[in-house]
C-alpha cells in the first residue's frame, strides 16, 4: 500500500517539475523575448512585448516586427540608431506599416520563431522569397505593367547611355553625378521610379529650351536634340522604370521567349501548357525535388525545370528551350512573380484596375513584342523556324518565299484558326486572345522581318486547278511524301491534310509554293530543277494540288 503513496508522491513531484519547466520555457525562454531584451534606446531597455502589423484588407497579421523591432511602426527612437534587428526598413515605396511584411516578402506572418516565420519549415507553402528575387512579390498586385520584349528594353538602356542622360539623371542606381545647374547645385531627378508618376509630357521641350539657352555645362554638352523615333523609344523605356528593374527585365524575357504561345497568363495565351497565373505560389511540398540539385526551394525547382522540363515533369510537352543561365535566372524570377491575388480596390494598383476594366495588355502590343511573346518559342526569334528534339519541326514563317505567295487573308485566317490538333493554337480573341488588330500587327511584322516582303493580292479565284489527281498522287508519293507523309499528315513538315489548311489555302498559293519552294528550308522549288530533283511541269504541279484537294473532299 505504501507503493501507491510513493507512486503518488514521485509522480506529483515530477509533474510539478515539468509544469514549472513548461511554464518557464513557454513564457520566458522565447527567442523574441531575448532579442527584445537585448535592445535598448539610450540605455533604457525597450518594452518587451509582442509586436505585429495587422492589415485586415490584405488578410495579413505580420509578427515579423516582433524580432525585426526596428521595422515596427512607431519604433523610431530604436530605429534611429539601430543596427541588425533594430535597424529600420530601408525606404520603400510601400510603407511596411500600410502593407505589412509578408505581402512583399512572403513567409509566415503569424509565426514568432525564426524558421517558422521565414517559412523554412515543412507544411508552410509560402516560404520567404530569396533576396535576389524579393521583387517577385510585386506580381501579386502589379500584374499589368506593359513591358516590351528584351531587345527593346535593352535598346532603352543603350539610348540612355547614347544620349548621355545618365550624366545628370540617376536611373536604377547608375549615373547622376553631374549637376545640370552647377552653381545652384540642383540635382537632376532620379528616374528610377518615373514610370510610377508618368513622364512629364513637356520634359523634352524644357530640355531643349535649356539646351538652347546654355552656353556651357551639361545642358550644352550632355544634352542634344533627340530624333523622334529615339524619343518615343526613350519614353517607352522610362515608362517601365517603376523601381523594379529586375522584375521588368524578367518579365520582358518572358515576353521574348514566346511563352504565351503555349501558356496562359491573365486569360491570354495558348492552352498547351499549364495556366501560369499563380505559378509563383507553387507549394514546395507538392513538387518533385528528386532531380533538383541544391536546396529544396521553388526557385531551384523552376530553374532546373526551365533547363530541362521533361526531366522534372513526366510527359511534359515543353521542349528544352536552350536558355542561357542568365535567361533562366530571369525567367525563374518572373515565374516567382506570378502570384496574382484579388485585392480590394484600395489595394489594387490603378493600372491593374484600368487594365482589368479596359482589357489592356501586360505586354506592349508592337509587332516585335507580340511576335516574340506569342510566336518565337516555336518559329524562332527571327521567324526562321525551329526544331526541337523529338518534335515536329516548326515551319519558317518569316520566309520571303512564303510571304511572297501567302496573302494577308490566308495568314490572318491561319493565325486566327491555328491548326487544331497540332501545336499551332488558334490565336483568335476567343481562344488565345489576340485581337484582329494585334494579329494584323504580327503579320505586318513578319513581312518586315522577312525583308519587307509585299503582300500578294488576295486571290481572285480560290479554287481553279482542275488536273489529274491520280497523276498527282503518283507525283506526291514520289516527291512530297518523304517529308509531308504519305497521307499528308506531315511528320517532318507542315501537315497538308489539315482541314483548316485546305480550307484557307487557295490554289494559287499551293501552286506557287510548290513552284517556288522555300529557301532556307528543305522545301525546294519544283519549278526549276536541280540535278538531284528534276523540275516538274506546271500541269504536274497542278496535279499534285488536285491530289491535295482530294483530302479536303473526304
Amino acid at each position, binding site marked *: *500500500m505504501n507503493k501507491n503513496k510513493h507512486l503518488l508522491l514521485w509522480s*506529483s513531484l515530477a509533474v510539478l517539475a515539468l509544469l514549472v519547466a513548461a511554464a518557464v520555457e*513557454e513564457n520566458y525562454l522565447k527567442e523574441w523575448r531575448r532579442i527584445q531584451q537585448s535592445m535598448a534606446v539610450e540605455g533604457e531597455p525597450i518594452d518587451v512585448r509582442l509586436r505585429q502589423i495587422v492589415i485586415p484588407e490584405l488578410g495579413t497579421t505580420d509578427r515579423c516586427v516582433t524580432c525585426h523591432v526596428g521595422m515596427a511602426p512607431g519604433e523610431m527612437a530604436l530605429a534611429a540608431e539601430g543596427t541588425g534587428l533594430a535597424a529600420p526598413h530601408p525606404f520603400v515605396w510601400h510603407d511596411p506599416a500600410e502593407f505589412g511584411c509578408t505581402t512583399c516578402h512572403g513567409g*509566415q506572418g*503569424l509565426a514568432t520563431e525564426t524558421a517558422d516565420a521565414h517559412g523554412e519549415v515543412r*507544411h508552410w507553402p509560402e516560404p520567404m522569397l530569396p533576396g535576389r528575387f524579393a521583387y517577385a512579390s510585386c506580381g501579386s498586385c502589379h500584374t499589368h505593367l506593359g513591358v516590351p520584349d528584351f531587345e527593346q528594353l535593352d535598346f532603352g538602356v543603350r539610348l540612355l547611355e547614347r544620349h548621355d542622360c545618365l550624366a545628370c539623371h540617376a536611373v536604377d542606381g547608375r549615373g547622376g553625378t553631374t549637376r545640370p545647374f552647377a552653381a545652384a547645385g540642383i540635382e537632376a531627378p532620379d528616374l528610377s521610379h518615373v514610370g510610377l508618376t508618368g513622364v512629364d509630357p513637356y520634359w523634352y521641350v524644357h530640355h531643349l529650351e535649356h539646351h538652347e539657352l546654355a552656353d556651357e555645362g551639361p545642358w550644352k554638352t550632355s544634352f542634344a536634340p533627340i530624333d523622334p523615333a529615339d524619343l518615343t523609344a526613350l519614353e517607352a523605356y522610362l515608362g517601365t522604370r517603376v523601381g523594379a528593374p529586375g522584375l521588368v527585365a524578367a518579365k520582358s524575357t518572358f515576353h521574348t521567349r514566346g511563352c504565351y504561345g503555349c501558356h496562359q497568363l491573365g486569360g491570354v495565351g495558348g492552352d498547351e501548357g499549364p495556366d501560369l497565373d499563380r505559378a509563383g505560389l507553387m507549394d514546395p511540398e*507538392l*513538387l518533385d525535388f528528386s532531380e533538383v540539385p541544391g536546396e529544396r526551394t521553388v526557385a531551384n525547382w523552376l530553374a532546373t525545370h526551365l533547363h530541362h522540363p521533361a526531366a522534372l515533369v513526366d510527359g511534359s510537352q515543353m521542349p528544352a528551350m536552350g536558355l542561357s543561365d542568365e535567361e533562366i535566372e530571369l525567367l525563374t524570377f518572373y515565374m516567382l512573380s506570378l502570384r496574382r491575388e484579388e485585392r480590394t480596390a484600395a489595394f489594387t494598383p490603378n493600372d491593374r484596375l484600368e487594365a482589368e476594366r479596359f482589357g489592356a495588355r501586360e505586354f506592349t502590343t508592337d509587332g516585335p513584342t507580340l511576335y516574340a511573346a506569342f510566336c518565337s518559342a516555336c518559329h524562332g526569334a527571327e521567324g526562321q523556324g525551329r526544331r526541337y528534339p523529338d518534335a515536329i519541326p516548326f515551319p519558317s514563317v518569316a520566309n520571303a518565299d512564303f510571304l511572297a505567295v501567302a496573302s494577308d487573308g490566308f495568314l490572318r485566317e491561319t493565325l486566327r484558326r491555328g491548326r487544331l490538333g497540332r501545336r499551332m493554337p488558334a490565336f483568335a480573341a476567343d481562344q488565345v486572345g489576340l485581337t484582329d488588330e494585334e494579329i494584323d500587327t504580327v503579320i505586318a511584322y513578319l513581312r518586315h522581318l522577312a525583308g519587307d516582303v509585299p503582300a500578294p493580292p488576295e486571290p481572285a479565284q480560290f479554287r481553279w486547278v482542275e488536273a489529274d489527281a491520280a497523276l498527282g498522287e503518283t507525283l506526291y508519293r514520289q516527291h512530297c511524301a518523304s517529308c509531308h507523309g504519305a497521307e499528308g499528315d506531315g511528320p517532318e513538315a507542315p501537315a497538308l491534310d489539315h482541314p483548316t489548311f485546305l480550307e484557307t489555302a487557295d490554289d494559287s498559293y499551293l501552286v506557287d509554293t510548290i513552284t517556288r519552294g522555300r529557301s532556307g528550308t528543305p522545301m525546294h522549288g519544283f519549278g526549276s530543277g536541280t540535278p538531284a530533283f528534276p523540275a516538274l511541269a506546271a500541269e504536274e504541279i497542278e496535279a499534285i494540288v488536285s491530289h491535295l484537294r482530294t483530302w479536303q473532299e473526304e
Partner: protein
Amino acid sequence: MADSERSGLGVFFANLKEAPQRVLRSLFRSGPPATDRSRSSFVFDNVFLHIHAVRTHRWSLRWATTWGLGVASAAAFLIALATGVLLMFYYKPYPEVAYDSIKDIHFVVPTGRFIRNLHRWAANVMVVVVFLHMARTFYTAGYRSPREFNWLIGLGLLVTTLGLSFTGYLLPWDQLAYWAITIGANIAQSPQELTDAVGITEYFDPGGLQRELLLGSDVVGADALIRFYLLHVMVLPLLFVALLAAHIWRVRKDGGLARPADADDRLGPPPPDTYPVFTETPQKTYHLAAIVEGRTPAVDQSPENTVPSMPHLFYAEMGVLMVTLLVCLLLALSFDAPLKELANPMVPENPAKAPWYFLGLQELVAYSAFMGGVGIPTLVIIGLGLIPYLDRETRGTGEWFGGPGGGRLVWHSTVIGLAAAVGIAAFAIYFGWLREWFPDIPQLVITFVNPGTILAAFYAAYSLYLVRRYNSTRAGALGLFTCFLCGFVVLTVIGWYFRGPNWDFYWSPADWPAH
C-alpha cells in the same frame, strides 16, 4: 449566556479567529478521517467520492489487477477536458479563421502550444488506454455476471472516445484534418456500395444520409466544422461524463472489481505495516452497507481483506492520475501536435489517411467500402457486446487469461491471429483480389468475399473450433478477442506505415514517389 457577557466586538473577533476551523469543519462534517467511521463518512458524505465504495478489497489495489487502466482512461479524459476548455477561449470554429486561431494558439497565446500539445496527447493516450482497459477487463473476465451491463456501458464509452477524438481531428482545419475527415465521411457513406449493388440507392440511401448527417452538407465545409465542434465540445463530452458516471457507479454496485473466488486466501493477511486496516472493533455501523440492495463488498465476507478507500484507494487513484498526467506532459513537451497547410479542397492529400485508430478500418474499406465501413465494425461491436451474455462460466474470473486454455490458448491465438491477418493482407497485396482477376465481377461478390470478410470468417471459425475443443464459450471468446486485437493491430500498422500514395503498398514511406 457567556456571549451576553462579552462585548459584540469581542464576539466578532472570537468568531473571526474561529472562522478557518469552522470552514474546515463545515467542509468535512465528519471530522478528520482518523477513525473507520470518519473515513467512511469522508467518502459517502462527499458527492464526488461517494461514487466509490467506502472500503476497497486489497485484491483491487494490486497493481497487476488493473494496471490502473480504467482510472488512467478517466484521467486522460480529465486532462483533455481541462486543456480543451482552455483551448476554447481562443479557438474560432470557422474555416480558415480556425486555422489562423490554431496558429495563434501555437505562436502567441501564452503556453498555448503546450496546452494544445497536452490536449492532443491526452486524447491519443486516452484512445490507447481505453483499448488496453477493455483488453484488461476481457482477459480477467471482468465482464461476467453481475457486470455484464457495465461491459456494455464500457463499449459505449469506447465508441464515445473514438467519436470525441475523431470530431476533434477536423477542428484545426489543416490538410491533415480536412482529408482525414473526408475519408471518415466517405467511410460513413459506405453502405452505398451495398445499395448501389442492389440498385436501390435512389430510394433508400442510408450511406448518403449518414454522410449528410455527419457533414451537414455535401462537402467538408463550414457546416461540417461547426457540427464537429459542437459534438466535440458539448454533446460527446456530456454523453461521456454521463456514461462514465454510470460506469464507475456500477463498479461499486456490482461489488467492486471482479476477483477470484479464492482471492482472500491468496492474499493472506495484510502485511503488518498496512495502516489503517481496522482501527476499531467492528460495530454495528460496519454492516450499514449491507442494507443497500445487491451484492456489496462486505456481504458474506470477512472484512479483513478490505481496507478503507480513504486513504488507500485514493492514493492509488491519485497516483495513476499523476502518472497519466506525467506521460502526457512528457509527450507534450517532446512532440508538437501536427499542423499542416491550410485545408485546400483543390489539393488532395495523397495518401489521405484517417486518424490512426481508424486506419484498420480504412484498410478494410480499401477491400470493400461497405464491409470495412459498416459490416465488420458492426459485427465486432455486436460480438463484443454479446460476450458477457454468452460466457456464463465462472472459472478464471478475476485472473489474467483466466478460463479454459488460459495463457497458452491466448498465446496460440495471438500467433494464429497475427499470421492470419498478415497472411491474407500479404496475399491481397502480392496477388491482388477478385477485381484484378475478373474485371467484370459484380461488386456484390467482392463485398462479401474480400480479405476483410475472409479474415473475419476465419477468426469466427477458429473461435467456434475453440468452443468445441475446450467445451467452453470462454475459450472461444479468448480466441476471438485475441484474434480481434491482432487483426486490429496488423491492419492499423499496414494502414499507418505500409500504405502510400493511392493506398499502394510500400515497404517504407521513404520509398513513396515524390509529390
